[in-house]
């Protein structure tokens, strides 16, 4: 099936089986390997990308469902200017081994766009679908609460 969508601002077209996982298409066809596969069943959030603004697990989305959609991956998040949440993650030590970091940044970016000044509780709820086995989450929440969403992101 030919699927057309926008990915990180660029129009792309891929010819893949319709039920291919978006995660595989991003990694294998488009060579965007920033989105990680952790569990492959929607539990861990390492594959989080944004489809039309909404954070989703790309391992659970069949590519046929993104025909005509606009996708942003971690590669597109800080493409022109580093996203404030990325800066804050660096400043606050929010990343350790790094596997969960792209997904965390995508969930955080989606949160900050709707709610530029989240409380710690709101940040925890928004990040509850992103598992991290290193940081214990405190520094991640510190980072998210310290970042200011860029205008029009």
């Amino acid at each position, binding site marked *: 099936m030919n699927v057309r969508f926008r990915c990180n601002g660029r129009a792309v077209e891929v010819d893949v*089986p*319709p*039920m291919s996982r978006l995660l*595989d298409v991003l990694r294998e066809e488009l060579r965007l390997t920033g989105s990680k596969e952790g569990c492959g069943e929607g539990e861990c959030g390492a594959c989080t990308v944004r489809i039309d603004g*909404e954070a989703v697990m790309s391992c*659970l989305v069949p590519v046929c469902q993104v025909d005509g959609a606009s996708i942003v991956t971690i590669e597109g998040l800080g493409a022109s200017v580093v996203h404030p949440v990325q800066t804050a993650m660096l400043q606050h030590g929010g990343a350790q081994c790094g596997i969960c970091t792209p997904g965390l940044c995508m969930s955080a970016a989606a949160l900050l766009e709707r709610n530029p000044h989240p409380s710690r509780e709101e940040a925890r709820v928004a990040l509850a679908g992103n598992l991290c086995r290193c940081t214990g989450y405190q520094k991640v929440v510190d980072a998210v609460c310290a970042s200011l969403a860029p205008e029009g992101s």
Partner: protein
Amino acid sequence: MSAPVTALFRPRTLNDALKMRAEQPGATVMAGGTDVMVYIESGTLKPTAILDLWGCSGLRWQQSITGGQFHGAGLTCTDVLRSGQSHPLLEAAAATVGAVQIQNRATLGGNICNASPAGDTLPVWLALKAEFEVASVRGRRRIPAASFWQGYKKIDLRPDELFLGILIPPLFGHTHFRKVGTRLAQSISKVVFAGRYNPGVDACLAFGAVGPTPMRCLKAETALVAGAAVDDVVQLVREEIAPIDDIRSTAVYRRQVAGNIVRRWLTSL
């Protein structure tokens, strides 16, 4: 790893969806895919044809109509949370489904038709006396939520039918939702409860994950409305539910917790 799907149908309108359903009764219906994709990945489902309802706008709407509130099958949990128009019991349930990324795709119709005994919205429909609307090219039917789940993962939906949505009648009384899982997010319920109590008039004590289908505790409800002591209502709840031991919990724990939830709620009123 992708399944060898040879036919894909992506209707935009409800009429097209029903036509395709009639022509392809063997196709796997998919909405947000959060259950279907997991089944495909684990090998328990090997579809050859897919009827994808994600882009079908005729299923994704919500409106007050005569006789109550209509929720289309294609509304996601996030749609429910953002609309501000849904019943607080439904909002509470939608907020506990998975995590944000799941709520952004998980549809009400998918939760209902997947028919997991632990589906978090299911006791809500019982507590709110909802009616389900299903349709085929032959016509529409309304089914009370209480008779839709006929057995473990068995629903009253014919091979040429699609689930259209839910009608919630106007109701009164106190309501309460409580989910007990291993953690707040991303956990399947060990026990899930939705209750509604209109003193002297009626009550509904509905549970999920304590039997093969979501269920009401009819004896406990009758006792409650008749003015029985909380202890007696709790006792009846523990007798009426039919929990089992499984990977998520034990029958003993579920009985204890189910009673505790009801006791805590009723004594807080």
